[in-house]
């Protein structure tokens, strides 16, 4: 990621009257120079969602395995280990569920919001075609409307 040296630097703009005198193009160039271009993390949410799901399943498996381990022994020491492993499994499952929910909910909410916006647009278009562009006058709540009102 390289910045073109032919664009004015922050110091050059400062000497020519400061940032207040900057044109929008110069300010744009300066802001872009400061911009940290991160990796296009397109696949990251999906990766985290998968990691969350795997941790969740792994946690449950570890928990069940710890339960079985504690059942197959009468040694209190081994049972203590099983409890520790079981708690680890539960922690894994909780953390995994949280990660999974965080990334799956984000995707769902984004989709939901886009859908809401889309449906609102359709409703507005229907409304406009129905009223032929005229805006309905809201009813006056203070007035007592009766059947004979025209």
């Amino acid at each position, binding site marked *: 990621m390289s910045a073109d040296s032919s664009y004015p630097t922050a110091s050059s703009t400062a000497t020519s009257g400061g940032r207040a005198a900057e044109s929008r193009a110069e300010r744009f160039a300066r802001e872009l120079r400061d911009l940290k271009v*991160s990796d296009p993390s397109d696949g990251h949410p999906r990766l985290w969602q998968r990691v969350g799901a795997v941790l969740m399943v792994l946690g449950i498996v570890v928990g069940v395995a710890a339960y079985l381990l504690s059942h197959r022994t009468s040694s209190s020491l081994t049972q203590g280990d099983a409890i520790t492993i079981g708690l680890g499994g539960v922690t894994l499952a909780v953390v995994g569920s949280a990660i999974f929910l965080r990334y799956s909910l984000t995707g769902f909410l984004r989709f939901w919001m886009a859908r809401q916006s889309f449906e609102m647009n359709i409703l*507005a278009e229907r409304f406009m075609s129905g009223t032929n*562009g005229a805006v309905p006058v809201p009813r006056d709540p203070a007035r007592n409307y009766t059947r004979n009102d025209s």
Partner: protein
Amino acid sequence: MSKALLEMRGVRSAYDGVNVLHGVDLAVRAGQTVALLGPNGAGKTTTLRVAAGVQPISSGRLVLAGRDVTGARSLDLARSGVCLIPEGRGIFPNLSIRDNLWMMTFTGRSRGEIEEIAFSRFPVLGKNASRAAGTLSGGEQQMLALARGLATDPAVLLLDELSMGLAPVVVGRLYEQVAQIASDGVAVLVVEQFATAALAIANHVAVLVRGEVAAQGPPEALRTHLSDLYLGSSR
């Protein structure tokens, strides 16, 4: 002549593995209006989406004000001053004009400043500030979309199908505003199917055919060849 604020160098992009852009080269300078024309499915909207950082690039570079920003998040580009006004306006029909404008306070500008920018350029919006955006005419909705874009203080303005569903007179008025915006030093890239309107204000025209820039140059030079470029040469 000023340097390009927006440059696309050999940009390729695909949807689910299907290539849509096959090496697009394009540059827009500060104060310049570039019209991107072409038939349906040529990749015009995708080009805008790439420029806004919304659509990932398979290969090639996206350069803004000399800085290679290929792969940058659209949010970062928007904060820096790249503004995309999508086809269909993208306004909230159930909110009032004022509420729609207030959405742009995320840029750090106050409500008053945003209203000042919007209402000074589009007085009709000021007169109807409390009206629901969905009850406005198509032209007024497009004005609102433009006003919201301007509220972000854009350095690069990307307009997708400004004329969609509007009467030619309204389109003419909107393009006058676009020309004024460009004259303030904003780099404007307009995607348009209504070629005559875009040609009237553009300093430079690029014709996109099947994901490639088939021709570009000044509007006078391309005006007579447009039908050949759209439909293929009859010779």
